């Protein structure tokens, strides 16, 4: 089963990177979303996916049973999911604002900074 998981995670990572390389901002955001899903699975995988029992201590016992899943990666992923969501929401807000004020989300058109010129040109060459 590990083989299937590792293969799937690798493929999803590749898909995320491919979308990340697009020039359309929305695709990039979707790529980030894919990539963060894949990375969460990497963390999950690193704690070994072997058990189906939730890491909850059973009543009457004071310690987690051996059969339970590894709680450590779960705690890490839980916050990562929420933070990843906040990141994507922020990126989406940037995109929304860019669409409203510039009118395009194609990177080729988002060149307000580049049209200022390079520092190698003298000040007279810059606009």
């Amino acid at each position: 089963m590990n083989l299937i998981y590792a293969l799937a995670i690798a493929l999803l990572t590749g898909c995320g990177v491919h979308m990340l390389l697009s020039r359309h901002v929305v695709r990039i955001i979707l790529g980030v979303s894919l990539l963060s899903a894949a990375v969460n699975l990497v963390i999950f995988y690193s704690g070994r996916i072997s058990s189906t029992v939730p890491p909850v201590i059973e009543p009457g016992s004071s310690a987690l049973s051996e059969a339970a899943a590894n709680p450590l990666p779960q705690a890490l992923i839980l916050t990562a999911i929420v933070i990843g969501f906040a990141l994507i929401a922020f990126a989406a807000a940037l995109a929304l604002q860019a669409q409203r004020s510039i009118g395009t989300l194609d990177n080729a058109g988002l060149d307000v900074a580049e049209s200022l010129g390079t520092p190698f040109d003298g000040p007279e060459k810059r606009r």
Partner: protein
Amino acid sequence: MPLSAILWISFLGSALARPLALRLGQRAGWVLAILPASLFGLLWIAGSGLEGAGAIVEEVAWVPSLGITLDLRLDGFSRLFGLMITGIGTLVTIYAGAYFADKPAHKGASFLALILLFMSAMLGTVLSDSLIGLYVFWELTSLVSFLLIGFDSYKASARKAALQSLIVTAGGGLALFAGILLIGMELGSFSLSNAMQNSAALAASPWCGTIMVLVLLGAFTKSAQVPFHFWLPNAMEAPTPASAYLHSATMVKLGVYLLARFDLAFAQVPAFGTALIVFGGLTVLVASVRALSRTGYKAVLAQSTVSSLGVLVLLIGLEGPVAATATVGFMLAHALYKATLFFCAGTAIHATGRTSLVEINGLRRALPVTAVAAALAAVAMAGLPPTFSFIAKEYLFEAQLESGSGWFALVALVLGSAVFVAIAGIVSLRPFFLGRSREGAVHHGETPGLFLGPAVLATLGLLLGLLPGLAVAPLLGPAASALVGQALPVSPALWHGLTPMLGLSALAVLLGLALYLLWPRLLARLAHLDWLDRLLGDAGYNHAFEGVLALARRCTLVLQNGDQRRYTATVVGATLLVTAVGLVLAAPPLAIDLSLEGLRLAPAVVVGLMVAAGFAATRMRSLPAALVAVGIVGFGSALLFLLNGAPDLAMTQFSVEALLVVILAALLLQLPIRPPSTRSAGERRVDALLAGGFGLVTFAALAAMTAAPLDLRLTEFFAARSYPEAFGRNVVNVILVDFRAIDTLGEIAVVAFAAMAVWGLLARRAKGKEPT
């Protein structure tokens, strides 16, 4: 008085100097000179009890956890330096006050403040016993000298010279720092005196050669030794009082100071002495040739300073106790006459508005006191009796003869001395006593502030020559003793009888006279030799500098071309490369359970769906469709969590996925559904390659991870302690709200920041409407 108090007074005083100078106006130089003068007094008193190689040590803790201190130490050698720094500092302050009298008040005030700060930094350098402290002060002198050299910042040449000196000296400083760290590593302590006493341990260290090269780099850059000799003459762009200070007594001699200190530490490394003799001698020769081919008043003086520094470096490289005496003697003598000559040059340039020696003539009548001082200093520079320099020069030749270090050092010293004689005539006889001053050529006369410094120093040079005992017992004896680490009898006198040294002196003087008489013809020849200038000047530095700039420009134009896809591709490619190389080099065992044992149908189907959706997302032209596909991947991972014992994660992922669709839908509502493709077919192929490579590396990394043993210590800790200590049965939640609660606090703060940012970002647009 503790040594740290002296440093505190110095730094606090220089911090207050600027506002004070602005209030005082014309008298600022005289009043501010009280600071260096009183420091001079304090140092004199503090060190008056020193005998032989004794020292006053004061321990100052700084970063105890790293074993870094700011220990201070005053012995004869650092006291001599401290006295030169503060003594000449006093005169420079007075002179600078007068020099800036006719310039805007804020300029003079800033300059005085910088000079005093510079003095404090140098004082810190020579008083530090901690190598870390020494380095900090050392770099501080580089920084302040950058500001002083570039003081006339409206001049492009001044800015260039300032940058050049900073790059060379601060760069050398970094090398020194590396050397210091290695010393600390090898000897277990950053104490300079400890390093001086542990020469055997240092010589036995495998890093000894590296340390030596690094320390030499630091000292050679600071003291303008070949091949770093080019920056110092360019630094003459500084206002003259700064030149007098930087180049006579002090900053450039810090390199010499460092070498003299490390001479003991490297006592058992013969290469150290050889390197000093070779580079010092080369510097003397190069600077001598260049000094004779210049016409600028300050330029000639600067080249002769480089030559003097070469002499000092060479002297340190020589063996034997006389060399130590000669070093400290020549150091003092040079400080006295070179500062005087710089003062005189400044006054002459100030008076006439001209900088070339060819154009400045017969200033004797207009500047009488300055002329006398210049004459005395010239006699000293030529090494003629009865000045103190004569005594110093006798020692110099004696040290050479005693150590028997070969003809190269001897030739360098005699030639160097001969050129000193010629330069002495060129810079004092010609401008002040020969020829006739042109009518109305003198704009500014001399004022007490302008002639006090040269007069005092020149007189001192003469006085110490007549009564050498005055300098020896309190100053030179302890200084030389500190250098060799044991009490050293020093008994200089003007007349030694007919010795070989006297013969060499006479030879040097005769050669020098000949050079002086031939100078106009020599100048005409040398000044037109472009190849000489290229070979010995800063052409190499300029090429390197231009090359670095060109490289930076090319890199920037390639990497920073304004196309975001290229940035991402660069980052992805670099990450790919680093990870792949790391995996190949580490060659970890790759273990993936190739059998399909433990295969469960439900997760396998979910995984298959996720991959299919992921691929679909990359292929979809329609953005909403791609959003749905990405959403499927998210819900799929939630299902995976649910199927593998992580209900907390599943719930969170489900909620987040729903909210994500809600938010991204708001964005998509304002966009065309099928935006045109942004990538060319070629770019898509490159991207597919990058993405495929990334997937492959991820797979290899996961395989390597599977092979590594799982460290379960933390998991076991949480499993065992969760209920007894935090009274919670859901271990995941207990980790979040209890064991690692501070992390969680930080994470909700990040969520809050993101929300605030979105709130502000999208609110600004609401024109005319009140932001809610």
